[in-house]
């Protein structure tokens, strides 16, 4: 379904806030959609816009000159905490983000991102601090994300290796999804179910 995750180079959007929750990434009032359209406009909505629709002053980082088109978000610790809404990675991807570099991200957000072609790159706190410094010093510095070799190339031949779940890596590189993988396991699932009777019957007439 998704496109294979190819290596890419991009300038960086710095967002040094810690514990950025998914309510900030996409406020709940934008969750009434029944599809995935239009979420780029909802991204960080209340950090970007005043109630009247005008840009906030000072301007949020996404809307500063030169940020459009950047694909790497450099974020503070515990990015994506809170609500399980997959609308968060949908909105980030719709805006154009393909990788989030942070010192940790929330479990549900990480899983949701990996299923949508958004790569969380986890670095240690010291590396994260150095990256923020680098971007502060050279706002237009370009990084190259190479998932295949699990390395972020920094300027000056410096390489930043990162860990990634091998299964998720394979799925991203092939552009296949986990449901396809799971559907292929149907025989094993059926065999297991034959040996393990259902523990519940949710049908309305099953309750007494």
């Amino acid at each position, binding site marked *: 379904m998704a496109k294979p995750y190819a290596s890419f180079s991009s300038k960086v959007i710095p967002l*040094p*806030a*810690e*514990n950025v*929750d998914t*309510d*900030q990434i996409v*406020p*709940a*009032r934008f*969750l*009434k*959609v*029944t*599809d*995935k359209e239009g979420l780029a406009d909802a991204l960080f909505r*209340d950090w970007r816009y005043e*109630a009247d629709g005008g840009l906030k002053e000072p301007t949020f980082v996404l809307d500063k000159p030169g940020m459009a088109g950047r694909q790497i978000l450099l974020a503070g*610790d*515990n990015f994506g*905490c*809170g*609500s*399980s*809404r*997959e609308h968060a990675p949908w909105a980030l991807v719709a805006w154009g983000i393909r990788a989030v570099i942070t010192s*940790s991200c*929330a*479990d*549900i957000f990480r*899983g*949701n991102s990996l*299923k*949508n072609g958004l790569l969380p790159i986890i670095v240690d706190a010291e590396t994260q601090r150095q990256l923020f410094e680098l971007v502060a010093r050279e706002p237009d510095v370009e990084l190259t994300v190479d998932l295949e070799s699990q390395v972020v190339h920094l300027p000056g031949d410096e390489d930043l290796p990162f860990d990634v*779940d*091998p*299964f998720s890596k394979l799925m991203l590189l092939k552009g296949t*999804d*986990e*449901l396809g*993988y*799971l559907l292929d*396991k149907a*025989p*094993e*699932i059926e*065999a*297991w*179910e034959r*040996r*393990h009777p*259902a*523990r*519940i*019957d*949710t*049908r309305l007439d*099953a*309750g*007494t």
Partner: protein
Amino acid sequence: MDRRIHRVGQNAPNMDAAPRHPRTLVDKIWDDHVVLDGKGAPSVLAIDLHLVHEVTSPQAFTGLRRRGLKVAHPERTVATADHSVPTTPRNLPILDAMAAAQVDQLTTNCTEFGIPLHGLGSPSQGIVHVIGPQLGLTQPGMTIVCGDSHTSTHGAFGALAFGIGTSEVEMVLATQCLLQRRPRSYEVRVDGRLAPGVSAKDVILNLLSRIGVGGGTGHVFEYRGSAIEALSMEQRMTICNMSIEGGARAGLIAPDDTTFEYLAGRAHAPKGREWDSAVERWRALPSDPDAAFDRTISIDASALEPMITYGTNPGMGLPISAAVPDPAATEDGPGRRALESALAYMDLQPGQPILGQKVDVVFIGSCTNGRISDLRLAAAALKGRKIADGLRLMVVPGSDEVKREAEREGLHEIFRAAGADWREAGCSMCIAMNGDQLTPGQYAVSTSNRNFEGRQGKGGRTFLASPLTAAASAVAGVVADPRRLPGIEALAAVGGR
């Protein structure tokens, strides 16, 4: 196939035989549900119960249609509408066209795919994490998922219950399985006796204030100890509910007689002989005495005060008699900047006492504290009293059944006499998707689970607290200490179950 995969070393043991090493509750549930051990890939984990609501499911059903798939087990799936539904009288239409379309879409999806729906207008409608336990669908030893991070609530029954994204909702609909890696374990020991006026909400807010909102990432909490064992099921649900606020996808409590008493006789609970054998099975679930946890933290329940948050995440909490922290007194770095930014958003001064802070709105409800015992506590505190002038108190039952029970007990009369707004069931101002929301700048004491910026309405400011603290604050018009309520000893004993 499975046997081959479960074989270890030279031995080919019966896979149902207990391994020699001591196991935690989570280990036992995990081992019982592993369809396929991944060998590098994540494991295929069987899901017993899948809860569905209107907000995180539409795109999953669209995905099924696109692939031409059916729901594998509609009879292990159950749906309700809770997030975007109004809490105004049910005979009024949903005014928000998008919310109405989303609720309609859920009905269409459930009809087309054969999923039981406790929809709007049904006597069993309510917040998904309130109706699961209420209907007896939530049972010990199960794996339970829902496209909602507060699915951790169901862990109170000794079930492994966690929130999932919409892609995973589609996976579970299609296969009744998920791809998962075994989580690490985190023991949360709470021993001692809670003082009157201190409740389950204060225990979890205290834990979060210690470990922060990312402290449990990658882990599952197991809450244990004498203070946990002494809690009612509804209080246990309050604690497990907010596990996700500490970054843990799940949090659970070993099933015991309190659990079985709560479950017995509920609509979907086992009956007769099946009940007896189920209880026997459930009694084997608690962690083995010498089971090891990856991490441990201890909390002395006797030392706890009522807790309240002052900032913009649930980890920013303090004892209610304490002062708002001073960024200048914290180490320079991201933590200080977060604190500065939180205090600016909340418009609070460093060092000011949180007691006495003005409050505009009090919200009592949500999957954290919208159950009958929560409403009983709040009503006991409000009985014969009036809320402060100019303050708005919204009481939103967690389900239609909770509402009916409260009305049978006359609690709604107490709330109304105090000046509260008594509403229909739903998530309401916890997530503010349905029109129930704060206006910019307003302060709320809320029994819900999140105080993120704008969570209860754009520009709104939230103090998370217990139902007793919320009720005391509603009367005072400012943040108030529930321990100063007259007759607090007797009051705190109200609740039950």
